[in-house]
Protein backbone atom coordinates (compact mmCIF):
# COMPACT_ATOMS: atom_id res chain seq x y z
CA UNK A 1 0.00 0.00 0.00
CA UNK A 2 1.27 3.42 -0.98
CA UNK A 3 0.23 6.43 1.07
CA UNK A 4 -1.10 9.13 -1.30
CA UNK A 5 -2.03 12.09 0.88
CA UNK A 6 -4.35 13.18 3.68
CA UNK A 7 -7.99 13.07 2.60
CA UNK A 8 -8.35 16.57 4.03
CA UNK A 9 -5.63 17.80 1.67
CA UNK A 10 -7.45 16.62 -1.46
CA UNK A 11 -10.57 18.75 -1.93
CA UNK A 12 -13.53 17.42 -3.87
CA UNK A 13 -13.11 17.88 -7.62
CA UNK A 14 -9.32 17.62 -7.31
CA UNK A 15 -6.74 15.02 -8.19
CA UNK A 16 -3.21 14.21 -7.10
CA UNK A 17 -0.58 12.39 -9.12
CA UNK A 18 1.67 9.84 -7.43
CA UNK A 19 5.05 9.88 -9.13
CA UNK A 20 5.59 6.15 -9.12
CA UNK A 21 6.38 4.22 -12.27
CA UNK A 22 4.02 4.25 -14.09
CA UNK A 23 2.32 7.17 -12.30
CA UNK A 24 -1.07 6.77 -10.62
CA UNK A 25 -3.62 9.50 -10.01
CA UNK A 26 -6.07 9.72 -7.12
CA UNK A 27 -9.35 11.56 -7.67
CA UNK A 28 -11.76 12.97 -5.10
CA UNK A 29 -15.09 13.34 -6.87
CA UNK A 30 -17.67 16.03 -6.24
CA UNK A 31 -19.79 13.33 -4.59
CA UNK A 32 -17.03 12.60 -2.10
CA UNK A 33 -15.78 9.30 -3.50
CA UNK A 34 -12.08 8.56 -3.93
CA UNK A 35 -10.70 6.56 -6.87
CA UNK A 36 -7.25 5.67 -8.16
CA UNK A 37 -6.40 4.91 -11.78
CA UNK A 38 -3.30 4.94 -13.95
CA UNK A 39 -2.39 8.58 -14.57
CA UNK A 40 -1.20 8.24 -18.16
CA UNK A 41 -3.81 8.30 -20.92
CA UNK A 42 -3.63 5.11 -22.99
CA UNK A 43 -3.56 7.16 -26.21
CA UNK A 44 -0.69 9.60 -25.64
CA UNK A 45 1.55 10.84 -22.87
CA UNK A 46 -0.94 13.02 -20.96
CA UNK A 47 -1.60 13.18 -17.23
CA UNK A 48 -5.20 12.36 -16.36
CA UNK A 49 -4.73 14.17 -13.03
CA UNK A 50 -4.68 17.32 -15.20
CA UNK A 51 -7.94 16.29 -16.84
CA UNK A 52 -11.57 17.39 -16.64
CA UNK A 53 -13.27 15.59 -13.75
CA UNK A 54 -17.03 15.32 -14.06
CA UNK A 55 -19.00 12.86 -11.93
CA UNK A 56 -17.17 9.54 -12.01
CA UNK A 57 -15.39 10.29 -15.28
CA UNK A 58 -12.20 12.09 -16.14
CA UNK A 59 -11.59 13.52 -19.59
CA UNK A 60 -8.03 13.46 -20.86
CA UNK A 61 -6.69 17.05 -20.89
CA UNK A 62 -5.39 16.70 -24.43
CA UNK A 63 -7.74 14.77 -26.70
CA UNK A 64 -10.95 14.36 -24.73
CA UNK A 65 -11.20 10.59 -24.30
CA UNK A 66 -13.13 9.95 -21.07
CA UNK A 67 -12.20 7.28 -18.56
CA UNK A 68 -14.59 5.82 -15.98
CA UNK A 69 -12.91 6.08 -12.57
CA UNK A 70 -14.81 3.02 -11.29
CA UNK A 71 -13.90 0.62 -14.08
CA UNK A 72 -11.09 2.31 -16.03
CA UNK A 73 -13.15 1.90 -19.22
CA UNK A 74 -12.74 4.47 -21.99
CA UNK A 75 -15.79 5.88 -23.75
CA UNK A 76 -14.56 7.30 -27.02
CA UNK A 77 -11.56 7.78 -29.30
CA UNK A 78 -8.78 8.57 -29.68
CA UNK A 79 -7.95 6.27 -26.71
CA UNK A 80 -9.09 2.69 -27.23
CA UNK A 81 -7.75 0.82 -24.21
CA UNK A 82 -8.85 1.15 -20.56
CA UNK A 83 -6.62 2.36 -17.76
CA UNK A 84 -6.03 0.15 -14.73
CA UNK A 85 -7.97 0.89 -11.57
CA UNK A 86 -6.33 0.59 -8.17
CA UNK A 87 -7.80 -0.20 -4.79
CA UNK A 88 -8.17 2.76 -2.46
CA UNK A 89 -8.18 2.47 1.33
CA UNK A 90 -8.74 5.41 3.65
CA UNK A 91 -7.39 4.86 7.15
CA UNK A 92 -7.10 7.44 9.89
CA UNK A 93 -7.70 10.20 7.36
CA UNK A 94 -4.96 9.08 4.98
CA UNK A 95 -5.58 7.80 1.44
CA UNK A 96 -3.65 4.63 0.54
CA UNK A 97 -3.44 3.02 -2.88
CA UNK A 98 -2.92 -0.68 -3.53
CA UNK A 99 -1.43 -0.68 -7.02
CA UNK A 100 -2.88 -3.26 -9.38
CA UNK A 101 -0.64 -6.11 -10.47
CA UNK A 102 -2.19 -6.15 -13.96
CA UNK A 103 -0.10 -4.97 -16.89
CA UNK A 104 -0.74 -1.27 -17.65
CA UNK A 105 -1.95 -0.06 -21.05
CA UNK A 106 0.61 2.62 -21.72
CA UNK A 107 0.60 4.70 -24.92
CA UNK A 108 3.13 3.67 -27.59
CA UNK A 109 5.56 6.55 -26.90
CA UNK A 110 5.69 5.90 -23.13
CA UNK A 111 5.82 2.13 -23.49
CA UNK A 112 8.84 2.36 -25.80
CA UNK A 113 10.55 4.81 -23.44
CA UNK A 114 10.08 2.47 -20.47
CA UNK A 115 11.41 -0.37 -22.59
CA UNK A 116 14.56 1.67 -23.20
CA UNK A 117 13.73 2.50 -26.80
CA UNK A 118 13.54 5.93 -28.41
CA UNK A 119 10.94 8.23 -26.88
Amino acid at each position, binding site marked *: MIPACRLADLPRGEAIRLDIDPPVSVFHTDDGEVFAIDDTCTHQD*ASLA*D*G*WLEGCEVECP*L*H*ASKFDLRTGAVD*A*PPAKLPVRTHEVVIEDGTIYVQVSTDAPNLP*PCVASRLAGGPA
Partner: protein
Amino acid sequence: MRTVAVVGASLAGLSAARSLRKQGYDGRLVVIGDEPHRPYDRPPLSKEFLAGTLGEADLVLESDGEDLGAEWLLGARATGLDRADRAVRLADGRQVRADGIVIATGAAARTLPGSEGLAGVHTLRTLDDARALRDELARGGRLVVIGGGFIGAEVASTAYTLGLDVTVVEAAPTPLAGPLGETMGAVVSGLHADHGVRLLCGVGVKGLGGETRVDAVLLEDGRTVPADIVVVGVGARPCVEWLEGSGVELDNGVKCGADGRTSLAGVVAVGDCANWYDPRAGLHRRVEHWTGARERPDAAIATLLAGGAVEPGVPRPPYFWSDQYGVKIQFAGHAGGADSVTVEEGTADDRNVLAVYRRAGQPVAVLGMNQPRLFTRLRKQLAAVTS
Protein backbone atom coordinates in the same frame (compact mmCIF):
# COMPACT_ATOMS: atom_id res chain seq x y z
CA MET B 1 -37.05 3.96 -38.67
CA ARG B 2 -35.82 0.78 -40.37
CA THR B 3 -32.75 1.88 -42.29
CA VAL B 4 -30.28 4.65 -41.51
CA ALA B 5 -27.54 5.56 -43.95
CA VAL B 6 -24.49 7.37 -42.62
CA VAL B 7 -22.71 9.03 -45.54
CA GLY B 8 -19.11 9.50 -44.49
CA ALA B 9 -16.89 6.99 -42.69
CA SER B 10 -14.46 9.16 -40.79
CA LEU B 11 -14.69 10.35 -37.18
CA ALA B 12 -18.07 12.10 -37.55
CA GLY B 13 -19.61 9.15 -39.43
CA LEU B 14 -18.25 6.57 -37.01
CA SER B 15 -19.38 8.65 -34.03
CA ALA B 16 -22.85 8.90 -35.58
CA ALA B 17 -23.00 5.13 -36.08
CA ARG B 18 -21.94 4.61 -32.47
CA SER B 19 -24.50 7.14 -31.25
CA LEU B 20 -27.26 5.35 -33.16
CA ARG B 21 -26.52 2.05 -31.43
CA LYS B 22 -25.95 3.71 -28.05
CA GLN B 23 -29.28 5.48 -28.32
CA GLY B 24 -31.08 2.20 -28.98
CA TYR B 25 -31.47 2.17 -32.76
CA ASP B 26 -31.46 -1.51 -33.75
CA GLY B 27 -32.45 -1.31 -37.41
CA ARG B 28 -30.33 -1.61 -40.56
CA LEU B 29 -27.29 0.65 -40.54
CA VAL B 30 -25.31 1.39 -43.69
CA VAL B 31 -22.07 3.37 -43.51
CA ILE B 32 -20.84 4.78 -46.83
CA GLY B 33 -17.28 6.03 -47.22
CA ASP B 34 -15.54 7.32 -50.33
CA GLU B 35 -12.10 6.31 -49.10
CA PRO B 36 -11.30 2.58 -49.16
CA HIS B 37 -10.19 2.60 -45.51
CA ARG B 38 -11.99 1.79 -42.27
CA PRO B 39 -12.37 4.91 -40.07
CA TYR B 40 -8.99 6.30 -39.08
CA ASP B 41 -7.74 9.19 -37.01
CA ARG B 42 -6.59 12.19 -39.03
CA PRO B 43 -4.75 14.42 -36.48
CA PRO B 44 -1.60 12.22 -36.43
CA LEU B 45 -1.32 12.43 -40.24
CA SER B 46 0.52 15.74 -40.01
CA LYS B 47 2.45 14.78 -36.90
CA GLU B 48 3.42 11.30 -35.61
CA PHE B 49 2.36 9.41 -38.72
CA LEU B 50 4.23 11.81 -41.00
CA ALA B 51 7.27 11.56 -38.72
CA GLY B 52 7.09 7.77 -38.84
CA THR B 53 6.61 7.28 -35.09
CA LEU B 54 3.04 5.97 -35.52
CA GLY B 55 2.02 3.38 -38.08
CA GLU B 56 -1.26 2.79 -39.85
CA ALA B 57 -2.47 0.30 -37.26
CA ASP B 58 -2.22 3.06 -34.63
CA LEU B 59 -4.64 5.24 -36.59
CA VAL B 60 -7.57 2.80 -36.47
CA LEU B 61 -10.52 4.43 -34.69
CA GLU B 62 -12.57 1.31 -34.02
CA SER B 63 -11.80 -0.71 -30.91
CA ASP B 64 -10.69 -4.33 -31.13
CA GLY B 65 -13.76 -6.50 -31.58
CA GLU B 66 -16.10 -3.53 -31.91
CA ASP B 67 -19.14 -4.51 -33.98
CA LEU B 68 -21.76 -1.90 -34.72
CA GLY B 69 -23.76 -4.31 -36.85
CA ALA B 70 -23.30 -2.01 -39.82
CA GLU B 71 -22.92 -2.66 -43.54
CA TRP B 72 -19.80 -0.84 -44.66
CA LEU B 73 -19.74 0.40 -48.24
CA LEU B 74 -16.18 1.66 -48.54
CA GLY B 75 -14.56 3.10 -51.63
CA ALA B 76 -18.09 4.17 -52.55
CA ARG B 77 -18.55 7.86 -53.24
CA ALA B 78 -21.99 9.38 -52.80
CA THR B 79 -23.03 11.37 -55.86
CA GLY B 80 -26.59 12.34 -55.05
CA LEU B 81 -29.45 12.36 -52.61
CA ASP B 82 -32.82 11.52 -54.08
CA ARG B 83 -35.39 13.23 -51.94
CA ALA B 84 -38.46 11.51 -53.41
CA ASP B 85 -37.04 7.98 -53.07
CA ARG B 86 -35.11 8.82 -49.90
CA ALA B 87 -32.07 7.25 -51.47
CA VAL B 88 -28.35 7.96 -51.58
CA ARG B 89 -26.91 7.46 -55.06
CA LEU B 90 -23.38 6.10 -55.33
CA ALA B 91 -20.78 6.67 -58.04
CA ASP B 92 -20.90 2.99 -59.04
CA GLY B 93 -24.62 3.22 -59.77
CA ARG B 94 -25.87 1.61 -56.59
CA GLN B 95 -28.55 3.24 -54.47
CA VAL B 96 -29.05 3.01 -50.73
CA ARG B 97 -32.61 3.68 -49.61
CA ALA B 98 -32.92 4.88 -46.04
CA ASP B 99 -35.52 6.41 -43.73
CA GLY B 100 -32.86 8.37 -41.90
CA ILE B 101 -29.76 9.92 -43.44
CA VAL B 102 -26.71 11.30 -41.66
CA ILE B 103 -24.52 13.54 -43.81
CA ALA B 104 -20.91 13.32 -42.66
CA THR B 105 -18.95 13.80 -45.88
CA GLY B 106 -16.38 16.09 -44.31
CA ALA B 107 -14.19 18.52 -46.15
CA ALA B 108 -11.47 18.33 -48.80
CA ALA B 109 -8.18 20.17 -48.90
CA ARG B 110 -8.18 23.26 -51.07
CA THR B 111 -5.65 23.15 -53.85
CA LEU B 112 -3.60 25.76 -55.66
CA PRO B 113 -5.00 26.43 -59.13
CA GLY B 114 -2.47 25.43 -61.74
CA SER B 115 -0.61 22.97 -59.53
CA GLU B 116 -2.42 19.90 -60.85
CA GLY B 117 -0.15 17.29 -62.32
CA LEU B 118 3.06 18.85 -61.02
CA ALA B 119 5.06 16.24 -59.13
CA GLY B 120 6.22 17.12 -55.65
CA VAL B 121 3.14 19.20 -54.81
CA HIS B 122 1.02 17.84 -51.98
CA THR B 123 -2.06 18.53 -49.95
CA LEU B 124 -2.68 16.70 -46.68
CA ARG B 125 -6.10 15.45 -45.72
CA THR B 126 -6.29 11.70 -46.21
CA LEU B 127 -4.22 8.68 -45.29
CA ASP B 128 -3.21 8.32 -48.94
CA ASP B 129 -2.06 11.97 -48.96
CA ALA B 130 -0.02 11.34 -45.81
CA ARG B 131 1.60 8.18 -47.19
CA ALA B 132 2.68 10.04 -50.33
CA LEU B 133 4.02 13.03 -48.41
CA ARG B 134 5.78 10.84 -45.83
CA ASP B 135 7.59 8.98 -48.60
CA GLU B 136 8.75 12.24 -50.17
CA LEU B 137 9.84 13.86 -46.92
CA ALA B 138 11.94 10.79 -46.19
CA ARG B 139 14.10 11.72 -49.17
CA GLY B 140 14.87 15.12 -47.62
CA GLY B 141 15.48 18.40 -49.41
CA ARG B 142 13.86 21.81 -49.38
CA LEU B 143 10.22 21.98 -48.33
CA VAL B 144 8.04 25.02 -48.90
CA VAL B 145 4.74 25.05 -47.06
CA ILE B 146 2.13 27.35 -48.55
CA GLY B 147 -0.16 28.49 -45.74
CA GLY B 148 0.81 29.11 -42.12
CA GLY B 149 -2.35 27.63 -40.61
CA PHE B 150 -2.39 24.61 -38.34
CA ILE B 151 -1.89 21.94 -40.99
CA GLY B 152 0.91 23.93 -42.60
CA ALA B 153 2.58 24.64 -39.27
CA GLU B 154 2.38 21.01 -38.18
CA VAL B 155 3.84 19.77 -41.44
CA ALA B 156 6.63 22.37 -41.13
CA SER B 157 7.34 21.23 -37.59
CA THR B 158 7.43 17.55 -38.54
CA ALA B 159 9.63 18.21 -41.57
CA TYR B 160 11.99 20.26 -39.40
CA THR B 161 12.26 17.27 -37.04
CA LEU B 162 13.06 15.08 -40.04
CA GLY B 163 15.92 17.42 -40.96
CA LEU B 164 14.48 19.16 -44.01
CA ASP B 165 15.14 22.78 -44.91
CA VAL B 166 11.72 24.38 -44.37
CA THR B 167 10.11 27.66 -45.47
CA VAL B 168 6.53 28.65 -44.64
CA VAL B 169 4.77 31.21 -46.84
CA GLU B 170 1.68 32.93 -45.44
CA ALA B 171 -0.44 35.47 -47.33
CA ALA B 172 -1.73 37.22 -44.20
CA PRO B 173 0.51 39.55 -42.15
CA THR B 174 0.19 37.19 -39.14
CA PRO B 175 -0.40 33.45 -39.36
CA LEU B 176 -3.28 32.01 -37.29
CA ALA B 177 -4.76 35.48 -36.71
CA GLY B 178 -8.21 34.12 -37.58
CA PRO B 179 -8.43 31.37 -34.97
CA LEU B 180 -6.08 32.89 -32.35
CA GLY B 181 -6.18 36.66 -32.94
CA GLU B 182 -3.20 38.79 -34.01
CA THR B 183 -1.32 38.81 -30.70
CA MET B 184 -1.33 35.11 -29.94
CA GLY B 185 -1.17 34.18 -33.63
CA ALA B 186 2.21 35.93 -33.67
CA VAL B 187 3.30 34.13 -30.49
CA VAL B 188 2.37 30.66 -31.75
CA SER B 189 3.79 31.20 -35.24
CA GLY B 190 6.96 32.48 -33.58
CA LEU B 191 7.75 28.80 -33.02
CA HIS B 192 8.94 28.60 -36.63
CA ALA B 193 11.67 31.21 -36.20
CA ASP B 194 12.60 29.71 -32.80
CA HIS B 195 13.65 26.60 -34.72
CA GLY B 196 15.24 28.24 -37.72
CA VAL B 197 12.30 27.65 -40.02
CA ARG B 198 11.81 30.62 -42.37
CA LEU B 199 8.41 32.29 -42.19
CA LEU B 200 7.51 34.70 -44.99
CA CYS B 201 4.33 36.63 -44.15
CA GLY B 202 2.13 39.08 -45.95
CA VAL B 203 3.01 37.77 -49.38
CA GLY B 204 0.85 35.75 -51.72
CA VAL B 205 1.88 32.95 -54.03
CA LYS B 206 1.81 33.76 -57.75
CA GLY B 207 2.53 30.27 -58.98
CA LEU B 208 4.82 27.30 -58.95
CA GLY B 209 7.95 26.78 -60.96
CA GLY B 210 8.95 23.54 -62.70
CA GLU B 211 8.00 21.55 -65.79
CA THR B 212 7.02 18.08 -64.61
CA ARG B 213 8.26 18.45 -61.07
CA VAL B 214 8.05 21.51 -58.86
CA ASP B 215 11.33 23.36 -58.37
CA ALA B 216 10.24 26.69 -56.89
CA VAL B 217 7.44 28.74 -55.37
CA LEU B 218 7.00 32.10 -57.09
CA LEU B 219 5.84 34.89 -54.79
CA GLU B 220 3.72 37.87 -55.76
CA ASP B 221 6.46 40.30 -54.74
CA GLY B 222 8.76 38.78 -57.36
CA ARG B 223 10.79 36.55 -55.08
CA THR B 224 11.44 32.92 -55.96
CA VAL B 225 11.78 30.31 -53.21
CA PRO B 226 13.51 27.13 -54.41
CA ALA B 227 11.63 23.97 -53.49
CA ASP B 228 11.98 20.20 -53.87
CA ILE B 229 8.64 19.54 -52.17
CA VAL B 230 5.64 21.85 -51.76
CA VAL B 231 2.77 21.34 -49.33
CA VAL B 232 -0.34 23.41 -49.96
CA GLY B 233 -2.12 24.02 -46.67
CA VAL B 234 -4.68 26.66 -47.56
CA GLY B 235 -7.75 25.33 -45.81
CA ALA B 236 -10.56 22.97 -46.68
CA ARG B 237 -13.92 23.19 -48.43
CA PRO B 238 -16.96 21.21 -47.34
CA CYS B 239 -17.75 18.16 -49.50
CA VAL B 240 -21.37 18.89 -50.32
CA GLU B 241 -21.45 19.09 -54.14
CA TRP B 242 -23.28 15.77 -54.17
CA LEU B 243 -26.21 17.43 -52.38
CA GLU B 244 -26.81 20.12 -55.04
CA GLY B 245 -30.44 20.02 -56.06
CA SER B 246 -31.37 17.52 -53.34
CA GLY B 247 -33.45 19.96 -51.33
CA VAL B 248 -30.89 19.99 -48.52
CA GLU B 249 -30.13 23.67 -48.01
CA LEU B 250 -26.48 24.49 -48.56
CA ASP B 251 -24.68 27.54 -47.25
CA ASN B 252 -21.00 27.13 -46.47
CA GLY B 253 -21.66 23.40 -46.13
CA VAL B 254 -24.96 21.91 -45.00
CA LYS B 255 -27.00 24.53 -43.20
CA CYS B 256 -28.14 23.03 -39.89
CA GLY B 257 -30.11 23.95 -36.83
CA ALA B 258 -28.57 23.91 -33.35
CA ASP B 259 -29.36 20.19 -33.15
CA GLY B 260 -27.93 19.12 -36.52
CA ARG B 261 -31.24 19.05 -38.40
CA THR B 262 -31.14 20.08 -42.04
CA SER B 263 -33.88 21.57 -44.20
CA LEU B 264 -35.08 18.02 -45.02
CA ALA B 265 -36.90 15.95 -42.40
CA GLY B 266 -35.06 12.77 -41.49
CA VAL B 267 -31.72 14.17 -42.63
CA VAL B 268 -29.09 15.48 -40.21
CA ALA B 269 -25.51 16.60 -40.80
CA VAL B 270 -22.39 16.39 -38.63
CA GLY B 271 -18.67 17.05 -38.79
CA ASP B 272 -16.68 19.34 -41.06
CA CYS B 273 -19.38 19.59 -43.74
CA ALA B 274 -22.04 20.82 -41.30
CA ASN B 275 -22.70 24.50 -40.66
CA TRP B 276 -24.53 24.38 -37.32
CA TYR B 277 -26.47 27.23 -35.82
CA ASP B 278 -24.82 28.59 -32.69
CA PRO B 279 -27.67 29.91 -30.53
CA ARG B 280 -25.35 31.87 -28.22
CA ALA B 281 -23.78 33.80 -31.06
CA GLY B 282 -26.95 33.97 -33.15
CA LEU B 283 -25.18 32.80 -36.28
CA HIS B 284 -24.13 29.66 -38.13
CA ARG B 285 -20.62 28.30 -37.66
CA ARG B 286 -18.98 25.54 -39.62
CA VAL B 287 -16.45 24.12 -37.17
CA GLU B 288 -13.74 21.82 -38.51
CA HIS B 289 -12.46 20.58 -35.16
CA TRP B 290 -11.90 16.94 -34.31
CA THR B 291 -13.83 17.36 -31.06
CA GLY B 292 -16.89 18.69 -32.90
CA ALA B 293 -16.91 15.65 -35.18
CA ARG B 294 -16.66 13.44 -32.13
CA GLU B 295 -19.21 15.14 -29.83
CA ARG B 296 -21.94 16.58 -32.02
CA PRO B 297 -23.24 13.35 -33.52
CA ASP B 298 -24.82 12.50 -30.13
CA ALA B 299 -27.11 15.51 -30.45
CA ALA B 300 -27.77 15.02 -34.16
CA ILE B 301 -28.70 11.37 -33.69
CA ALA B 302 -31.04 12.24 -30.81
CA THR B 303 -32.68 14.68 -33.22
CA LEU B 304 -32.90 12.10 -35.98
CA LEU B 305 -34.38 9.37 -33.78
CA ALA B 306 -36.85 11.70 -32.08
CA GLY B 307 -38.01 13.25 -35.33
CA GLY B 308 -36.73 16.61 -34.17
CA ALA B 309 -38.69 16.60 -30.92
CA VAL B 310 -35.74 17.08 -28.59
CA GLU B 311 -34.47 20.33 -27.18
CA PRO B 312 -30.82 20.74 -28.16
CA GLY B 313 -28.40 20.98 -25.24
CA VAL B 314 -25.86 23.75 -24.98
CA PRO B 315 -22.67 22.57 -26.69
CA ARG B 316 -19.31 23.04 -25.03
CA PRO B 317 -17.11 25.80 -26.39
CA PRO B 318 -15.27 24.44 -29.42
CA TYR B 319 -11.88 22.96 -28.57
CA PHE B 320 -8.87 22.02 -30.64
CA TRP B 321 -5.24 21.21 -30.13
CA SER B 322 -2.07 21.28 -32.17
CA ASP B 323 1.43 19.93 -31.56
CA GLN B 324 4.29 21.94 -33.04
CA TYR B 325 8.03 21.74 -32.29
CA GLY B 326 7.30 19.77 -29.12
CA VAL B 327 4.87 22.40 -27.80
CA LYS B 328 1.31 21.39 -26.92
CA ILE B 329 -1.02 24.10 -28.17
CA GLN B 330 -4.63 24.05 -26.94
CA PHE B 331 -7.45 26.45 -27.68
CA ALA B 332 -11.10 26.64 -26.64
CA GLY B 333 -13.81 29.17 -27.41
CA HIS B 334 -13.96 31.89 -30.05
CA ALA B 335 -11.20 34.49 -30.36
CA GLY B 336 -13.18 36.56 -32.83
CA GLY B 337 -15.36 38.41 -30.34
CA ALA B 338 -12.62 39.20 -27.81
CA ASP B 339 -11.64 42.77 -26.96
CA SER B 340 -8.65 41.80 -24.80
CA VAL B 341 -6.11 39.01 -24.39
CA THR B 342 -4.26 38.59 -21.11
CA VAL B 343 -1.35 36.30 -20.37
CA GLU B 344 -2.29 34.79 -17.00
CA GLU B 345 0.53 32.29 -16.57
CA GLY B 346 3.98 31.87 -18.03
CA THR B 347 5.38 34.18 -20.70
CA ALA B 348 4.83 34.41 -24.42
CA ASP B 349 8.60 34.53 -25.05
CA ASP B 350 9.06 31.14 -23.41
CA ARG B 351 6.22 29.63 -25.50
CA ASN B 352 4.88 28.40 -22.20
CA VAL B 353 1.78 30.41 -21.66
CA LEU B 354 -1.84 30.51 -20.65
CA ALA B 355 -3.80 33.36 -22.24
CA VAL B 356 -7.42 34.30 -21.61
CA TYR B 357 -9.49 36.16 -24.19
CA ARG B 358 -12.25 38.38 -22.82
CA ARG B 359 -15.13 40.40 -24.18
CA ALA B 360 -16.53 43.06 -21.87
CA GLY B 361 -14.72 41.36 -19.00
CA GLN B 362 -16.19 37.90 -19.64
CA PRO B 363 -13.88 35.08 -20.80
CA VAL B 364 -14.71 33.95 -24.34
CA ALA B 365 -11.65 31.86 -25.18
CA VAL B 366 -8.48 30.39 -23.70
CA LEU B 367 -5.14 29.44 -25.25
CA GLY B 368 -2.53 27.22 -23.68
CA MET B 369 1.01 26.42 -24.77
CA ASN B 370 2.42 23.54 -22.69
CA GLN B 371 -0.13 24.24 -19.95
CA PRO B 372 -2.55 21.29 -20.07
CA ARG B 373 -3.51 21.43 -16.40
CA LEU B 374 -4.33 25.13 -16.22
CA PHE B 375 -5.80 25.10 -19.70
CA THR B 376 -8.26 22.37 -18.71
CA ARG B 377 -9.33 24.35 -15.64
CA LEU B 378 -9.92 27.46 -17.72
CA ARG B 379 -11.69 25.49 -20.40
CA LYS B 380 -14.03 24.10 -17.74
CA GLN B 381 -14.70 27.60 -16.41
CA LEU B 382 -15.36 28.80 -19.94
CA ALA B 383 -17.99 26.11 -20.39
CA ALA B 384 -19.63 27.16 -17.12
CA VAL B 385 -19.65 30.83 -18.12
CA THR B 386 -21.01 30.27 -21.59
CA SER B 387 -23.66 27.65 -20.79
